[in-house]
């Protein structure tokens, strides 16, 4: 017995696709001084999004909760070896292998964002610069694995996981469903992101000097 049920609530989906957008932007602007302010703005956005996601991991709906995708190493190994034989079990929420990538991403977003903020405040010297770069490129690598995993899993179980992350729904037994969508919260998140972008751009265009403070440009003082 299966029907169309909701798996991903609205805040989780808004979180995900805002993260994808910000992540692409943050990388496209990382190698240039001209786009330094946009890079920083998008980095802050990712930190804001992740702060929400951490709360949502405890307070959110069924499949958004950390407990629903915190697997033991045994479970991950069992899943991976089944996957190698092409017989991986289907999970309605995150599968054990996918969840490894997701945990890594969550940690890397925090690490990369935090090191970026410190770097921008001229704390930590060359070490911080190195750290920010290494964590960011580690994240890029995990994103590649994450996308490959989504593709493989979609093919294996003949379901489109990308459209499930857009619509929030999957085919599954009715009792696996999650009723609450928290659409209002998703709307608030979207508004918050857009307001932040508009406000930040306006401020940095108006008064760049006051805005950035008078800290020394990193990297030229050591």
């Amino acid at each position: 017995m299966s029907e169309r049920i909701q798996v991903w609530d609205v805040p989780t989906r808004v979180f995900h696709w805002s993260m994808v957008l910000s992540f692409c932007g943050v990388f496209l602007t990382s190698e240039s001084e001209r786009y330094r302010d946009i890079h920083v703005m998008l980095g802050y956005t990712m930190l804001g999004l992740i702060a929400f996601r951490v709360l949502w991991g405890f307070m959110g709906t069924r499949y958004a909760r950390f407990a629903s995708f915190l697997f033991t190493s045994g479970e991950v190994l069992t899943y991976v070896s089944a996957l190698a034989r092409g017989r991986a079990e289907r999970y309605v929420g995150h599968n054990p292998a996918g969840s490894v990538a997701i945990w890594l991403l969550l940690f890397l977003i925090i690490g990369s964002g935090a090191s970026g903020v410190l770097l921008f405040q001229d704390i930590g010297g060359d070490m911080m610069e190195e750290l920010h770069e290494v964590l960011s490129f580690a994240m890029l690598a995990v994103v590649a694995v994450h996308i490959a995993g989504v593709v493989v899993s979609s093919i294996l179980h003949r379901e489109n996981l990308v459209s499930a992350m857009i619509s929030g729904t999957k085919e599954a037994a009715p009792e696996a469903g999650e009723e609450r969508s928290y659409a209002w919260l998703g709307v608030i998140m979207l508004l918050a992101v857009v307001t932040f972008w508009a406000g930040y751009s306006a401020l940095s265009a108006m008064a760049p000097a006051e805005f950035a403070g008078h800290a020394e440009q990193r990297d030229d003082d050591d």
Partner: protein
Amino acid sequence: MSRINTLLVLLLVVMSGLAVQPACAETFGQFMAEFARSAKSSPGFQSFSAANGEQFFKSTHGNEWSCASCHTEDPANSGKHAKTSKVIKPLAPLVNPERFTDPTKVEKWFKRNCNDVLARACTPQEKGDVLTYLLTIGK
């Protein structure tokens, strides 16, 4: 317990990626020699020119910024980042001896900033001209 273990292993994997690179110091003379060696491989190279370097430094090259947009018209002075307004220490090695000592930094900033100013990498000729110009400042 084993859930905690999984997380620990993940963290360790991330941390082990953080190899620290050894820094090796050089002098501006070595950079000059390096630029000259690379420049000689292109046909028509004669020598580096401080005048060309100055001209290059102070003009725009298709984009809105020149080198001087951030480093000012006088590289003996502290500059100001054209985007974030952060202070940039003087570029002239005789004024600021920390300049042109770390190959990683020199390469990184030439790459990044030439891209912003010229929308391409700087040639060895251009780098040599600029360094020659910078060495005339603060004598």
